[in-house]
């Protein structure tokens, strides 16, 4: 039975609601009263959530192999025939179309659900901020873009959402645009992401010319026999035995797309923008830089899993980059003193976990962790926001402490989230993290080791944060101290809901080893089937129950060790962190300066590009314009001078010379021209005599002859 239903046929409404309110806010928002802004903007996201839930339930009504719904609204990009690698021509079309399958179900629910809660929270958090309507306009625009991203039925439309969320991220990071650091951070985020996007675009193009289509799949399309998707083309290639020919290309595609994912999901080496992005308002950090946008790279890789499964080399790269990012970012989180920065590095680290999962072929585990992370990390950020709110804007954990009893709801929910991210049973993070570690262990021991240690670090830095913020003596300034208050219900209710999700959210993936059936993985199974079933990306791990439980105990004790260490450092104070820092000053410096990565990038790339710009600008003015154009001008003037000289001295000179010569010769003759009749008469006489004298003998002969 194919899925049908009212909500499904109005699937396009899900991204449209927030778009409509975003447009309204950005055009006339200034004239809408605050209550209206809240109602419209939060309401539209709520409506999206309702529609999404409706559509998902309608999809679930179908049996598991038929759970695909696809809807093409119109043909978007139609630039004519395209030549594939082999020389075939195909009409290239990018649809404006939406796809709902189990994978996008998870994403659309997470995005609209967590998004809705964060919107509600923002009503409280942003209540006293200027530009209220602008904030919500951007947030709703973000929801539109993110929903387009997760619902897109082809790579290019996904890219539309991809760039859209990047834009909103830029706008929201730079929301406090009066602060230079904020607008710098926004710009940095955008440009670093653009580097990734260039990889994404090239990946899309390579997919298009290799496979002839950029649609993910053709399931659920009315003409599904002829209209093909990436999955169907790969399947056909496998059936015709030509898969081997395109495998190297598929690896390149996978790597190019992963460059895009590195940018969006803040992986090494493109992670540098995310810590800076904390300049944005805290709800933005929760929504965009923790729960949804930064996971887009993970989603994209899973969406393209058919390609990745055929490119094992690329998978290895993904796994290694993920693992290295996980531990690298966790190590930086250990020494951060800004509450939001700790969480930012933690996010990078957790995203690394997700990529580690994808790289070892545990796509479902990656998405599972994406979901649980969305719950507890959104909660952590919102909790941090609540702390900052109560501390009158203070973000430095060295100036906090002792908040436990003063803001109890925030504190308890924060504790729950911390337990979840530390991977303590039975909180949500435990299930997803152990799923990943178990799969990593099966794939490659070293990857597991890295993930294992990261788990310890995570527990350590999170509990460090917890102890420093909520326990011990208050280190706050006096005037701050006086104003500490619990946040309004608009903020705490979302915290409580997210806390509940952080506890129970992982239970749908209760593993087989503990007597569950991992429903989550079952649900995603059809999407992750792959072209060759043997690749086993979706094969439910069948490793021995004993080993699985052993691994769980190991990672739990690792987390426990991290917590214990944090306790000794920051609660019981039996070990002084200062002493440790003084013992290894170089290591401490390195961590505090975040491995100097920003400085290295500035020195090696940013400043060099700027220098190149200056150099080329000088070149342009002095060589191309100077030598070339002015040179040509000079040459023209020079040859004009030469011609002038030639004209004056040679051509004119010769003429003048002739004239002078004539003048010279005429001089004696001119002496004769006296104008006196008597001298003319004399001349005539003299002439006559000379003539007669000269011709005298001729005359005689003449006369003689006449005679």
């Amino acid at each position, binding site marked *: 039975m194919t899925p049908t239903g009212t909500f499904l046929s109005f699937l396009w409404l899900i991204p449209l609601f927030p778009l409509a309110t975003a447009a309204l806010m950005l055009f006339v928002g200034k004239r809408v009263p605050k209550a209206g802004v809240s109602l419209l903007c939060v309401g539209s996201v709520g409506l999206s959530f309702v529609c999404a839930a409706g559509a998902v339930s309608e999809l679930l009504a179908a049996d598991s192999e038929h759970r695909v719904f696809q809807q093409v609204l119109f*043909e*978007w*990009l*139609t630039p004519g025939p395209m030549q594939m690698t082999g020389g*075939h021509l195909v009409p290239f079309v990018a649809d404006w179309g939406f796809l709902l399958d189990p994978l996008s179900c998870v994403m659309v629910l997470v995005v609209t659900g967590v998004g809705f809660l964060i919107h509600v929270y923002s009503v409280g958090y942003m209540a006293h901020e200027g530009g209220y309507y602008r904030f919500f306009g951007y947030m709703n625009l973000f929801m539109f873009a993110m929903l387009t991203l997760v619902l897109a039925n082809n790579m290019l439309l996904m890219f539309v959402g991809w760039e859209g969320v990047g834009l909103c991220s830029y706008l929201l990071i730079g929301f406090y*645009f*009066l602060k230079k650091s904020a607008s710098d951070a926004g710009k940095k985020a955008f440009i670093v992401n*653009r580097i990734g996007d260039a990889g994404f675009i090239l990946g899309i193009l390579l997919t298009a010319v290799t496979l002839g289509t950029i649609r993910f799949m053709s399931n659920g399309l009315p003409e599904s026999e002829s209209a093909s998707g990436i999955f169907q083309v790969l399947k*056909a290639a496998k059936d015709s035995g030509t898969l081997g020919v395109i495998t190297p290309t598929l690896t390149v595609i996978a790597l190019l797309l992963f460059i895009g994912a590195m940018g969006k999901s803040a992986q090494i080496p493109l992670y540098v923008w995310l810590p800076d992005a904390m300049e944005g308002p805290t709800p933005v950090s929760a929504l965009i830089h923790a729960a949804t946008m930064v996971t887009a790279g993970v989603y994209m890789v899973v969406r393209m899993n058919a390609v990745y499964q055929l490119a094992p080399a690329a998978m290895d790269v993904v796994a290694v980059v993920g693992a290295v990012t996980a531990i690298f970012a966790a190590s930086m989180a250990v020494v951060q003193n800004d509450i939001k920065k700790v969480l930012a590095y933690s996010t990078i680290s957790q995203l690394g976990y997700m990529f580690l999962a994808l790289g070892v072929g545990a796509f479902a585990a990656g998405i599972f962790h994406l979901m649980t992370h969305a719950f507890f990390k959104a909660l952590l950020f919102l909790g941090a926001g609540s702390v900052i709110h109560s501390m009158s804007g203070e973000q430095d954990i060295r100036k906090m402490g002792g908040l436990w009893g003063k803001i109890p709801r925030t504190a308890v929910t924060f504790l729950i989230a911390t337990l979840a991210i530390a991977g303590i049973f039975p909180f949500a993070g435990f299930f997803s993290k152990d799923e990943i570690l178990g799969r990593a262990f099966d794939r490659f021991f070293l990857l597991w080791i890295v993930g294992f240690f990261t788990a310890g670090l995570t527990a350590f830095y999170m509990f460090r944060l917890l102890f420093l913020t909520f326990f011990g003596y208050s280190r706050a300034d006096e005037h701050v101290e006086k104003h500490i208050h619990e946040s309004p219900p608009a903020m705490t209710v979302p915290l409580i809901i997210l806390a509940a999700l952080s506890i129970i959210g992982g239970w749908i993936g209760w593993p087989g080893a503990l007597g569950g059936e991992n429903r989550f993985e079952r649900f995603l199974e059809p999407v992750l089937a792959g072209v060759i079933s043997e690749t086993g990306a979706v094969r439910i791990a069948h490793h021995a129950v004993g080993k699985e439980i052993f691994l769980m105990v190991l990672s739990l004790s690792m987390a426990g060790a991290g917590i214990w260490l944090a306790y000794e450092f920051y609660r019981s104070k039996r070990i002084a962190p200062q002493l440790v820092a003084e013992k290894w000053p170089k290591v401490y410096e390195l961590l505090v300066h975040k491995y100097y990565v920003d400085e290295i990038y500035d020195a090696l790339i940013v400043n060099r590009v700027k220098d190149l710009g200056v150099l080329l600008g000088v070149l342009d003015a002095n060589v191309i314009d100077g030598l070339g154009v002015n040179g040509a001008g000079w040459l023209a003037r020079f040859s004009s001078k030469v011609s002038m000289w030639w004209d004056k001295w040679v051509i004119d000179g010769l003429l003048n010379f002739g004239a002078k010569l004539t003048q010279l010769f005429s001089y004696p003759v001119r002496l004769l021209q006296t104008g006196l009749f008597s001298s003319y008469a004399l001349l005539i006489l003299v002439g006559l005599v000379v003539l007669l004298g000269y011709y005298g003998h001729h005359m005689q002969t003449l006369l003689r002859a006449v005679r």
Partner: protein
Amino acid sequence: MDFFAHHILSVVLFTPLVGALILLFVPREQDSVPRLVGNVFGVLGFLVSLPLVHWWHSDWGGFTFEENADWIPSIGARYHLGIDGISLLLVMLTTFLGMIAIFSSWSAIKLRQKEYYILLLLLQVGMIGVFVSLDFFLFYVFWEVMLVPMYFLIGVWGSDRRLYAAIKFFLYTLAGSVVMLLAILALYFYAPAAADGSRTFDVPTLLAAVKDFPDSLRVWLFWGFFFAFAIKVPMFPFHTWLPDAHTEAPTAGSVILAGVLLKMGTYGFIRFSLPLLPTDTVLRARIIHIVIVLSLIGIIYGALVCLMQKDMKRLIAYSSVSHLGFCTLGIFALNPNGLSGSVLQQINHGISTGALFLIVGVLYERRHTRLISEFGGLATPMPNFAAIYLIISLSSLGMPLLNGFIGEFTILQGAFQVSKAWAAWGSLGVVLGAAYLLWLYQRVMFGPVTNPINEKLPDLNAREYATLIPLVILAFWIGIYPKPFFAFIEKPLERIVHQVNPGFYGAEHAKLPPLEMQPAVVETK
């Protein structure tokens, strides 16, 4: 009505001229009349060009709305007009941007208004003429005619270094067109004469005759035209007139320069240069490589030089070098994707860069400076301006759902099919595009107001909205639903590709059944 239908191109072409002639009879003392007449004819010029779109049929691949009359019989020059989908889009762009540019001068121009509007209208005639001429002689006349008004617009109404810029612009372009004139004459004389010994300047006839030319001659002809067009586009390293001309010209002049004038070069490439490419594959590949490398250098070089500019207009001028590099890249990919992307990107560039110049014009009218360092924090006093400026910047840097993305992606797609390296270098330009445009935006709009004069700057007024909003709407339209725009150029470009790159379709016919009956692997509409 019948006359109108049969001579629609002449009507479109000469409507601005009528306006200019009427203006001649307006007494100088009448201050407000010239701009009224200028605007009326700007709008009229756009209105009379609308039927072209209405009457157009997307199946048409060849020239339509043709008019063909004797002009100078002794040399075979004819008054031959006609357009295909490509020139149609460019004509529409010209009349549309012309209207907006004229309107944008409403309060900016106070000096010699009468002459100003006469020259703007004459400029329109020259530009439309270039796009609709199907006779080389006529084409050349319009090509040169357009220089004169632009020269005066820069030289009289420009800013500080206007004379330098005007003369540079004039000489630069003239140098190129002289070579083109030689090439046109060579075409004229090398093409076989008719049975009665008469010769012709007719474009379709001459370009058809090129088929029988030896490759050596075609190479020479190609380079002859190339210099004229490359200077006009402008391609690296013939671009240095552009920053000066753009910077010094009055706002309307910059809008027209960037929006339309540069497209005469790319149009020339598509219409005249492509058929001249030699048939020998090695020779051809060498030429294409040279042009592509120059395009790629232009893309990256232009973007990098943008990073160091201190003058807003100069920055935008260099960004044109970068964007036009994309256009030539697409053209010389010689496939439908590259070419259609290129044509669309030409339109897009007209919209986005035209709007960017209007934006600088808004600031210039308020502050009489274009220096980036004079501004900062303008988002506070001018929020609506900030919004529109942001949209336009995003359109220029290729944000999806705005026009620039459609063009850039399609061009990269076309380039990618020929060489993956070309596309990779091109995509570097996309990254840099974001860098310089956002940095500019940050320096001008964000932060606190650093300069006290800027604190009280008024936001956009109704007239400025009226000039900018249509461009914003078009930018969204092309970004969200570009299909109708592609429909105009699909068939003409198919013809061109058939003519200049027969291998593109040939390979297909040799290997596969016709397009409709392809195996399931292939995507169908």
